[in-house]
């Protein structure tokens, strides 16, 4: 009965342990640093996917603009790293030493005011969380208080992704333009480009990922998680149960934004640069596809979705660059039509169900059949 309110049930715990074993033990032992770094890059998208599970899967709020928040997190981190890489000693050949190289190329002679605070790592880390949360809050408040939802909201988030990309590309002197912020070197004097650094950063990222999984799990299993589900299906009824639907939607959207931004910040650290190509419409839609493929109702499923689709993207786009996008689109349509709950749904309905049946046939419980099914649905 109260299965759904428990923080984690047995199968979720096993799933988490399997993921931990895979990420912490199996992959680092079997992959070289180059491949491990690729996995780290894919994993940054799984942060976004976790947010989308809450916001889209549970809350029914489809955001086609998660790239915006991924980018905000990534750019905050990139600005800090860029300032550290642009010390007066490193940039003494520039006409204005001490500012990032792309500013110098664009005839900017002083560091813009909004870059100043990014000298501080503490400020940067706070900004990674606060900037996307505030931006999501503003968008959410403007939309949800006016009861803009569904497909209109999706289109607006998409437009915001396009606008932000255009803004970044256009304001080349302040943002690095289409190339983004590149040539990032050290974090507090620690060179992030070495194999050792990449190895360490991978584990830092996995640690962050698990904190995010637990946070998302906490939200999902709180009453707020159940209100999100209720809202997805009967928004009006939730109002008449005495809840402000707009506030709950804003919360879900902000939470998803923060998760995406953490992923973005990790991306910058792992990959060593940030550019508008991770902000715009195409990456934002790809993020939704990862989530759909993995299963939009399953946090763990979405993480696997992000890993698998990105791994497939790397191998297929190298061999068939023209076919890849078509393939991705076909995959998305196929998943939505045939398996609306993605890989997690396939696992639950076909694999998990069989395991349950096997373990149950050993010790039959009276009436367990019917209730077990209900429990499974509720647990999902």
């Amino acid at each position, binding site marked *: 009965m109260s299965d759904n309110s428990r923080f984690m049930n047995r199968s979720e715990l096993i799933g988490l342990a399997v993921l931990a074993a895979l990420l912490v033990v199996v992959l680092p032992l079997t992959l070289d640093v180059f491949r491990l770094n690729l996995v780290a890059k894919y994993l940054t998208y799984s942060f976004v996917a976790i947010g989308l599970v809450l916001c889209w899967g549970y809350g029914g709020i489809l955001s086609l603009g998660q790239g915006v928040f991924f980018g905000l997190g990534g750019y905050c981190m990139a600005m800090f790293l860029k300032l550290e890489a642009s010390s007066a000693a490193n940039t003494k050949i520039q006409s204005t030493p001490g500012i990032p190289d792309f500013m110098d190329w664009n005839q900017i002679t002083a560091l813009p005011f909004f870059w100043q605070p990014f000298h501080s790592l503490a400020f940067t880390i706070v900004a990674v969380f606060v900037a996307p949360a505030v931006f999501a809050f503003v968008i959410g408040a403007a939309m949800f208080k006016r009861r803009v939802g569904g497909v209109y909201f999706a289109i607006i988030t998409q437009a915001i992704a396009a606008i932000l990309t255009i803004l970044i590309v256009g304001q080349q002197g302040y943002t690095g333009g289409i190339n983004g912020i590149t040539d990032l070197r050290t974090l507090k004097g620690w060179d992030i480009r070495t194999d050792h650094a990449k190895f360490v950063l991978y584990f830092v990222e996995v640690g962050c990922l698990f904190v995010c999984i637990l946070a998302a799990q906490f939200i999902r299993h*709180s*009453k707020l998680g159940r209100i999100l589900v209720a809202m997805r299906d009967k928004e009006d009824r939730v109002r008449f149960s*005495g809840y402000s639907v707009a506030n709950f939607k804003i919360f879900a959207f902000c939470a998803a934004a923060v998760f995406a931004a953490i992923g973005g910040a990790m991306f910058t650290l792992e990959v060593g640069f940030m550019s508008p190509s991770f902000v715009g419409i195409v990456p934002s839609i790809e993020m939704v596809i990862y989530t759909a493929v993995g299963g939009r109702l399953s946090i763990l499923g979405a993480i696997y979705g992000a890993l698998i689709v990105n791994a497939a993207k790397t191998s297929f786009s190298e061999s068939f660059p023209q076919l890849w996008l078509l393939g991705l689109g076909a995959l998305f349509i196929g998943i939505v039509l045939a398996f609306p709950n993605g890989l997690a749904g396939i696992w639950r309905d076909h694999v998990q169900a069989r395991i349950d049946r096997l373990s149950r046939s050993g010790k039959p419980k009276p009436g367990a059949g019917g209730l077990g099914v209900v429990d499974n649905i509720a647990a999902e």
Partner: protein
Amino acid sequence: MIIGSQPKDFLLAVEALTVSFDGFKAVNDLSFYVDENEIRVIIGPNGAGKTTVLDLICGKTKATSGSIRFRGKELTKLTENQIVQAGVGRKFQNPSIYEDLTVFENLEISYPRGRTVFGALTFRRDAAVKERVQEVAEMVFLADKLAMTADLLSHGQKQWLEIGMLLIQDPDLLMLDEPVAGMSVSERVKTAELLNRIIKGRSVLVIEHDMKFVEDIAHRVTVVHQGQVLAEGSMNAVKTNPKVVEVYLGH
């Protein structure tokens, strides 16, 4: 049964309420008053504006003009959730429940605590919640269905669940839109019994077509026709009113 009272004694005072949809006045200059602990039934032909009146009171539809005062509070300026928090509960015509959640969770969400974002995050399913859910579930004949997902319930059980969800909110004014519509005969009997039990200690506003049921429960009846009050009074007085017979009961 009718007690003459000052305006401030009314639980609900609807005055000169008008709503216009593209020029069509679904509710036109409508006024009525509901006392504490009164059971008022609204009857009238289809399209008379009965459901719209409930929509206006609970905030689902915004009034074009007029006022709705509940315990002296102007409801037309509040949002739906604020109206609920003020103590007005509404049951919809079609069972409106959360089908993906279990019966227990449906009732728990309606439990009047932790209604803010932070409150919902930190809400704990403690003994008081469990007890109250159990108590209400027993009242609405669903005590053995608590773990069931709500979409597996029968139509009648869904109606009861929604009544239970209202009950757990403990509203001062309960609004029911055709509570026995679409129910089997045995469900109907049980529901009438259930309603008779839960209307004690609160005011109730009911829309119903089942005249037998109306006679059973109504203290006073308001007949609405073309968005206006046609007649008001006891069931017997209304039944013999020639205007009412002509537009409604006669057919």
